[in-house]
Structure formats: structure tokens, C-alpha cells
């Protein structure tokens, strides 16, 4: 522990909060450690995923450390809760950056939090890796320095994937139901744009408010338009209620859900017969890859659930591995070097690697590598966005079986 950081911190102790942190040892600054700030939605509307995302970061850090670190440097994970709120997210980020002196921030989930935090990481000249969908994150001012990397497909890309699935499945009369937030509306609007671009027509669209006891009137309005499929931008909780109420209505229609809603938790919540035949689309197309299996095992161990129940955890897992490979490749831990090497280790060309150990070995052997992530092939474009392929799964007898992959 350097005396400066401690003294600086104690100066603020009069503010009261600081007193509580006296026993804090986590911001010890020793040469061989790289501090990662895990900034996840532990509470709030993202709480379904937050803890799993954090566990995946920790598990991946353990993998890196067990392999001797990245360029000999061990990872240390310091976590904070964004509470899925921009304000709490900003304070949490300030704490991570300022008190814990983290050198990268991983795993902001909702677009609101990412957009609020990105100016801070930019100021601190620190990498931010997020799992948000808002298009604004790709461009300045948010990504003015190119330090922001997005491991999730943008809402727009999701919408395009939905449209591809509709074409492929031969649907003619799609309708949309969207949760009234950035992601829900983004998905539905993206779909509408893509579908109409193909000359199709969306027969009905509803944007609904969260936290209702029933969505029956909303559902009724959509069903009144007699669609053959309903495409949603929704979350687990509301989807649970909607699926039940739809099932009870007895009206036949097909569903296309985003993967975070059409998850094993949904099947568990509403029982298998209700969601039989529902199509779930997610950007984790690599479920056959070895990297996914590694992640899945780690997740299973940490959370007691299959990795498929939390696509964001796969993304945060990949964040750690990608960063470690980039550091290994750069041989240094300053932000500019890391930024410069992320694409080098994740994008083609190069030898496809699926685990940190393999990547490490290849890099040590002086090879150019292309990390294939657990969440996607993980190729970053000029905006720091991935354009993953989308896995299309069908819920059959309670199991979520991936049938094919669409590319956009």
C-alpha cells in the first residue's frame, strides 16, 4: 500500500463514509497486480443477471491467475453495484476509479448506466467493457476515445436478427410487444425497420409499462390484429406473466423472444407446455465452442445454474479473457497498449483459440491469435462493437435447443 493513496483517502475520512473503509485492503498497489472494476447490476432491474456477471468475472480472473497471470501480472477484481441506476452507477464508478484505482471497468449492463459511466472512464483513460445495446455508445461523445468495447449486439442488430428469423420461418404477419425501456423499444424498432426494409408489414405494435400485475389488455390488442408471430423486446419478469396470460387465452400464435427473456428460467417459471415451440434468439452463438463449455462449467460451479441462463455472464467472462490476452500480447498494462492489442487478439486473422491457456501458449509462441469467445466470435468493428452471429433456439419439451445460426 503506498502511503499517498492511503493518506489521500484518509483526508476524506471526515466525510464519514471513509471511516467505514479503514480495514480496506483491496486497493493495495503492488507491481504485479492489475485491478479490474466489476461494475454490475447486482440490484435493480438488472439483478437477474448482475451476480452471475460478477461471478463470471471472478471465475475468469481465477483462470487467468491460475495460468500465471497476463504478462506475469495477476488480476484482482473489485466489485461495485450499479443498482441498475445511472446515479448509483456514477458514484460506484467514481469509487472504483478513485478509491480502488481500478485499471479497467467491466460489465455495465443497462445502456443508461453505460452512458453515464463512459465519460468517467474516458476521463480516467480506462477501458470500459459493457453489455449494453444503445447505439449511442458506439460513437462520440460516448466513445470519443475508442476506449469503450461492447460485447453485446446493439438493439438494432437484434432487431435485424429477428427479421431474418421471421423470413426463415415463413412468418407473414408479425406483431411486436416491447417493454418501455431503451432495450425493449430498441429491439422492436430495430425489427420493424428491418422487416419493413424487406417489404413486410408489422400488423400491430404495443409498448407496455413495467411492473404490472397483468398485461392482458396489451396482449389482447396485439392478438386482435391476428398476427402469426409476436416479436418481443421484453424481460424475464414481464415475459413470464405475458406467456401465462397468453396461454390461458388459448389463442394460437408463435413467439420470438430475445434470449435473456426466452431462458431456462422462463421455462421453469411458466412450465414447459406453455412455451413449447417458442423461438429464442440470442447472440451467444458459440454454444458448441470449447470457450463456451469452459464458461458453462465455471458458471455452473459458481451459480449452480447452466451458463445458458445468463448470456451476459458469458460476455463478462470473455471480457476478462480478452483483456488478459491483450495484456499478454502487449506486455504492458497501460491503457493505450491494451486498447491497441484488443483487436489484435480477438479479431481475425490469427489462430483461433478458445481458452486463455491456449491463447497464452500461442502468444508465447509468437503467433497471431483470434480469440473465439464464449458469447460470440468476438470480432470488434471500428466502433468497438461486436457483430455476433445469432443463435436461434426452439423451446422443445422444456429444453432450449439451438437449431441454426443467422448472420446479419
Amino acid at each position, binding site marked *: 500500500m503506498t502511503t499517498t493513496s492511503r493518506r489521500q483517502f484518509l483526508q476524506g475520512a471526515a466525510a464519514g463514509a471513509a471511516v467505514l473503509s479503514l480495514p480496506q485492503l*483491496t486497493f493495495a498497489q503492488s507491481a504485479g497486480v492489475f485491478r479490474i472494476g466489476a461494475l454490475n447490476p447486482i*440490484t435493480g432491474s438488472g439483478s437477474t443477471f448482475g451476480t452471475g456477471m460478477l461471478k463470471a468475472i471472478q471465475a475468469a480472473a481465477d483462470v487467468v491467475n491460475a495460468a500465471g497471470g497476463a504478462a506475469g501480472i495477476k488480476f484482482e477484481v473489485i466489485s461495485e*453495484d450499479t443498482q441498475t441506476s445511472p446515479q448509483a452507477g456514477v458514484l460506484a464508478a467514481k469509487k472504483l476509479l478513485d478509491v480502488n484505482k481500478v485499471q479497467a471497468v467491466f460489465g455495465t449492463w443497462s445502456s443508461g448506466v453505460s*452512458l*453515464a459511466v463512459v465519460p468517467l472512464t474516458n476521463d480516467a483513460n480506462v477501458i470500459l467493457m459493457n453489455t449494453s445495446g*444503445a447505439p449511442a455508445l458506439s460513437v462520440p461523445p460516448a466513445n470519443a476515445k475508442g476506449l469503450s468495447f461492447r460485447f453485446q449486439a446493439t438493439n438494432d442488430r437484434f432487431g435485424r436478427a429477428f427479421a431474418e428469423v421471421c423470413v426463415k420461418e415463413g412468418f407473414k404477419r408479425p406483431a411486436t410487444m416491447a417493454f418501455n*425501456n431503451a432495450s425493449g423499444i430498441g429491439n422492436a424498432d430495430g425489427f420493424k425497420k428491418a422487416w419493413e426494409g424487406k417489404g413486410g408489414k408489422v400488423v400491430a405494435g404495443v409498448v407496455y409499462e413495467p411492473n404490472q400485475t397483468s398485461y392482458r389488455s396489451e396482449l389482447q390488442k396485439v392478438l386482435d390484429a391476428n398476427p402469426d408471430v409476436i416479436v418481443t423486446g421484453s424481460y424475464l419478469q414481464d415475459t413470464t406473466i405475458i406467456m401465462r396470460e397468453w396461454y390461458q387465452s388459448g389463442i394460437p400464435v408463435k413467439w420470438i423472444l430475445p434470449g435473456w427473456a426466452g431462458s431456462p428460467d422462463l421455462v421453469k417459471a411458466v412450465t414447459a407446455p406453455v412455451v413449447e415451440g417458442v423461438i429464442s434468439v440470442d447472440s451467444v452463438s458459440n454454444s458448441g465452442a470449447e470457450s463456451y463449455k469452459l464458461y458453462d462449467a465455471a458458471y455452473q460451479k459458481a451459480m449452480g445454474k447452466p451458463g445458458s441462463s445468463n448470456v451476459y455472464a458469458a460476455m463478462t467472462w470473455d471480457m476478462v479473457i480478452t483483456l488478459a490476452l491483450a495484456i499478454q500480447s502487449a506486455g504492458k498494462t497501460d491503457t493505450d497498449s491494451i486498447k491497441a492489442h484488443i483487436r489484435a487478439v480477438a479479431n481475425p486473422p490469427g489462430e483461433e483459440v478458445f481458452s486463455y491457456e491456449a491463447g497464452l501458449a500461442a502468444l508465447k509462441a509468437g503467433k497471431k491469435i483470434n480469440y473465439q469467445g464464449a458469447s460470440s466470435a468476438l470480432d470488434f468493428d471500428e466502433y468497438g462493437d461486436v457483430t455476433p452471429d445469432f443463435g436461434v433456439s426452439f423451446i422443445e419439451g422444456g429444453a432450449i435447443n439451438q437449431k441454426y445460426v443467422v448472420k446479419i
Partner: protein
Amino acid sequence: MSAYLIAITILTLIYVLLALGLTLQFGLTGLINFGHVGFFAIGAYTSALLTLNGWPVGVGIVAAAVAAMLPALPIGYISLRLRDDYFAIVTLAFSEVVRIVVTNAREWTSGTQGLPGIARLYASLNGAASEWAVLGTILAVTLLAIWMITRIARSPFGRLIQAIRDNEVAVKALGKDPAWFKIQVLAVGAALAGIAGAFYAHYITYIVPDQFVPLVTFYAWMAITLGGASRISGAVVGSAILMVLLEGSRFVHDFLPMISDSAMASVRIGVVGLLLILCIVWRPQGLTGKRGDA
């Protein structure tokens, strides 16, 4: 001082501005305004939208104060006929309507996408200097507000609003219109909330309707309850304690590492709740009030 503590101080001062409005409205006048966050939201959106359209931040902040005051007039006029506790719910409903409107008026507010990239105050200065400048500006505005409310409290106007708190009907019998005074009190509190909202928007640089939920109002109420509703110092002390509670709980983890991260969130909310209860039971008049003030 570290940037983190500056950030906490800035947000504390924003809460002080909110709480001061409540001190004036509730502590002095007896108005139970449960819709404070509505005025806060109007201020935030007004300044954000103006500056995003090229107006200077200074103009945005002034406009925020004015825009927040505007709805205070009709709300005051319509609902001041109502009983105190009904007024509370009507104002709460107002703030929810504001949130629903900014959520759904997508052409103006981009709805749930939120407004990113709101200009920062003193953006031209480098990191630390800019933080200090922001802190200094908000501190100056807060001190001005404290001076203003103190002056009001000790004036004939202050005497009359306290008379209204004690017995509104008697005030009417004395030839003074309580509604007009209440509207003014509402408007002053709304303006402070609007300014607080503007500072908030320019500090966080991103606003979205989710930030303007009733919980913000309750936090401001907690601040004046903890600090003491009938004293101006109560707003300051209470806001500081509130922020220590909210942020301090982040550090509880360092004391109790055995608590899992997800449980930590529950522990945090439990600590806030527990301290709130203890404070009210143990010092009903708030930390600044004399016994008997309550």
C-alpha cells in the same frame, strides 16, 4: 480530496437543494409535497434539452428554475383546496405523471433511451480543476439558497406561512389568501428543485426517466426527517447523513467480506432502513432540532 469524495459532496449538495425546498414547504408551511422529484425532473430535462440545442449552460440552469416553477402554479391552485395528506398524494401523482410524460414524449426526450452527452459545467477545464469548479459553483448556489430561506423564515412572510401551517382557516379570516402564499412557497421550492435538477443533469451528463422515481422524493424527505424538518441546518445535516448512509454502505463490504455480493445489496437497503428507524425513534426532532420541535 479525492474525486470520489468530491462527487459525493456534489450529490450531497444537490440533495441539500432538494431538501431545502422541503424545509420551506413542510417545515415552515406544513405542505406535504411528495412530488418533489417531478420538479427536479423538469429542471433536469429543461436544462439538458436547451444545452443540447446549443444554449449555454447558464441559460439552461436559469430556465430550469423557471420551468420547474411553472407547474407549481396550477398544481398549487388546484390542489391547495385539499387536505394535507391528499395534497401529498396529488403531488406524488404529479411527479409520476411527469415521469410518464418524459418516458413517452419520445420526440422531445428520446424517452427511455435517455439524453446522453449533456454538457458538463466547466468542461473546458481539465478533470480535477473542473470537478473543483463544479463543486464551488454548486456550493455557492446552495449557500445562496440557505441565506434566502433563512431570510424568508425570519420575515413577515415566514411568520405568515408558519401561521398557515398552524391554522389555515384563521389566516383567511385575517384577510390573507393562504393559497397565494402556498403557491409562492411551492414555486420557490420547485425552483430550487429545478436548479438541483439542472446541476444533476450537467453533472451526471446523462438523464433518463428512471432517475426520476419517487424514491428520490423519499430520499429528500429522509434527509429533512433525519436532520430536522423545522430547521434549515436540518436539510444540510440530513442530506449529509443520507449520503453517508447510501455511499457508506458500499464500504460495509470491507468490514464483512463474508457477505455475498447479492446479499450485500439487501444489507445496504437494510442498513439504510434501520438507521432511518433508529434516528426517528431516537431523535424525533432530527439531529439539529431542539426537543419539542417535532
